[in-house]
């Protein structure tokens, strides 16, 4: 199981490393700027974008406010087409189910297309324990698997890798030099992966959406690997978060218009795959069995609460691409799976605030994320709410709480304000020696407190 908890100082430590790494800084800057620019151009080309965003929000909230009913509707529809549906309460339950499916089929090799949910549950490690080799076939995920690393961006998982680093990894696997040039790298990945597709017993995908009315699993990909993974092996397992459901094909159309535009700036991705059940009699393509695993893993905690809107996230990555903190700290600082503003909101909600107390503070609250979210999730407002919960549930340190409380009593009267600021003026020479003042002064001059404006 992937460890999602984030010790308090971890973000700062990893971010510090990222900031010191020039290659990473330039890769982050270039990639996020390009993706952001693409999204803005795609949004600009749609005069109705604001209305579409609202419709996207409404479509997502419709399902989230009644998710059990939509899950049942989906289950009935897809089971009628011969698929198996399994609802997994926890990460372990989901992994065990997938491992069991593999075991039942005597599978040795599973090919995977990109799935953040599978990263979330640590599926690859669970499969390995069950004696199944899992091979990532999304180019970025494949690179990271070779490097033994975790994704740092939910859409472009290897965003921080340079082509030279990728060439080195591929050369090692191929046993001969691969040029650090995009064409050569793609060809190498193609050679390396083709046989895996043909040999695999099980194909594992995520799902961008699942349509309740028709029992359809929807995959949105650019590399075509999703189609190979879901059609070549005898067994297909689709793993999806319980909030991936949409009510009907009409809502799907709205969300598809938003997703690719917001993620990469494309009108649609190269492949939009709608899967409705395993291969039927007379059909040439498709798996003999389809298993749909619907994952809770903490999501139902959000239902009906102040954070419910976070479940509307369509994983486009737009908030990462505009986030000035992500741009500096990189994805790894947020943890092994979700990153950027969406990760900073989602992770504490999935694992508990006490297990990810730094994430709500990994933001300057600039609001760029909220502005970029295609389904209008008020991300920075949710971060503000999480900070409030950190205090009210006493996760924030007693020292911090005592300091703000004392400050607030002193500043609740002009006299208290006058006294404390007069003292602060006297204590100026020592301000940079301890606590927050020291952290401030580590890289900045302290302000000079002169005569107050009110005393002039």
């Amino acid at each position: 199981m992937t460890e999602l908890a984030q010790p308090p100082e971890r973000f700062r430590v990893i971010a510090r490393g990222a900031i010191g790494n020039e290659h990473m800084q330039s890769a982050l800057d270039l990639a996020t700027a390009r993706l952001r620019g693409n999204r803005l151009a795609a949004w600009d080309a749609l005069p109705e974008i604001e209305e579409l965003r609202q419709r996207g929000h409404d479509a997502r909230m419709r399902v989230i406010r009644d998710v059990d009913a939509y899950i049942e509707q989906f289950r009935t529809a897809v089971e009628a087409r011969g698929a198996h549906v399994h609802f997994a309460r926890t990460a372990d339950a989901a992994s065990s189910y997938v491992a069991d499916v593999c075991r039942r089929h005597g599978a040795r090799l599973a090919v995977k297309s990109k799935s953040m949910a599978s990263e979330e549950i640590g599926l690859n490690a669970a499969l390995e324990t069950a004696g199944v080799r899992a091979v990532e076939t999304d180019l970025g995920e494949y690179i990271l698997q070779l490097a033994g690393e975790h994704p740092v961006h939910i859409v472009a998982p290897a965003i921080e890798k340079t082509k030279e680093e990728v060439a080195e990894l591929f050369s090692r696997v191929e046993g001969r030099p691969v040029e650090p040039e995009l064409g050569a790298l793609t060809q190498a990945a193609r050679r390396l992966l083709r046989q895996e597709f043909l040999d695999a017993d099980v194909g594992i995908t995520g799902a961008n959406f699942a349509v309740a009315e028709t029992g359809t699993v929807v995959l949105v990909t650019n590399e075509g690997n999703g189609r190979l993974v879901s059609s070549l092996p005898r067994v297909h397992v689709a793993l999806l978060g319980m909030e991936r459901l949409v009510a009907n094909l009409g809502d799907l159309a709205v969300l598809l218009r938003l997703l690719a535009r917001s993620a990469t700036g494309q009108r649609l991705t190269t492949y939009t795959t709608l899967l409705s059940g395993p291969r039927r009699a007379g059909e040439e393509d498709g798996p003999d069995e389809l298993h749909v695993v619907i994952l809770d893993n903490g999501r139902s905690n959000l239902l009906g609460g102040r954070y419910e809107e976070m479940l509307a996230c369509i994983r486009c990555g737009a908030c990462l691409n505009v986030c000035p903190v992500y741009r500096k700290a990189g994805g790894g600082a947020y943890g092994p799976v979700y990153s950027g503003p969406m990760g900073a909101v989602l992770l504490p909600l999935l694992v508990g605030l006490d297990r990810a107390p730094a994430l709500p503070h990994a933001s300057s609250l600039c609001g760029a994320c909220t502005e970029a979210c295609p389904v209008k999730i008020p991300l920075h407002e949710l971060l503000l709410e999480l900070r409030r919960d950190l205090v009210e549930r006493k996760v924030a340190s007693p020292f911090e709480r005592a300091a703000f409380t004392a400050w607030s009593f002193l500043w609740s009267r002009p006299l208290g304000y006058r006294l404390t600021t007069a003292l602060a003026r006297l204590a100026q020479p020592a301000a940079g020696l301890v606590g927050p003042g020291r952290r401030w002064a580590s890289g900045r001059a302290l302000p000079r407190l002169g005569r107050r404006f009110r005393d002039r």
Partner: protein
Amino acid sequence: MPAVQLFATCLGDLAFADAVADAETLLREAGFDVEFPAGQVCCGQPAFNAGHRGAARRVARTFERAFSRATPIVAPSGSCVTMAAHYLPELLGCEPFDVWELSAFLDAHGAEVPRRNEGRRVAYHDSCHMLRELRIADAPRRLLERSGATLVPLPRADLCCGFGGTFSVRLPEVSLAMADDKLAGAAGAEAEALVTADPGCLIHLRGRAERTGARPLPVHLATALARGIA
């Protein structure tokens, strides 16, 4: 003469008294009678943004008590105006305030500004609260242009400068790296001053520039307009 109430803000009162005085001058020159309610302290934002709602409420009440609702409130701080306009009514359960950011107020009232920046190259840094919460982007630029300045665009003007209240001390390395990008952008644009309308951005960017020797120096908008950039 129409009156306004000047909200100095705590940062302005303590660290940028000159900029607040410049704001007062601009308002006077625009024909307003400037009142300074003596009971004012702070809008409570430092605690609010750190999640301490109770503490924020306690301090924010000083704002509610100090300011009359009969006269517009003007502050030389996009951030504090955002707090007062967007969050205080809900936090305190009170009626909205008639509160204005300085440049938006001056611009809306067609204020003339002296041509103290004739031919000078100036970069304007949008504070996030002004840009995204108050949606004020044109007013400060228009005023700078009316002061004779030529505005030079900053690269990635959408990016936050890295202040973010307690963020600046919780994640100092990230915060400083963001400041360095902003300062480098202004230098690259060959601006003679980096002007911002927010004491928060200013205390952070100026502190960083003073430490590293980066130029141009960040300046408050009120100062740039009332006295010209240095």
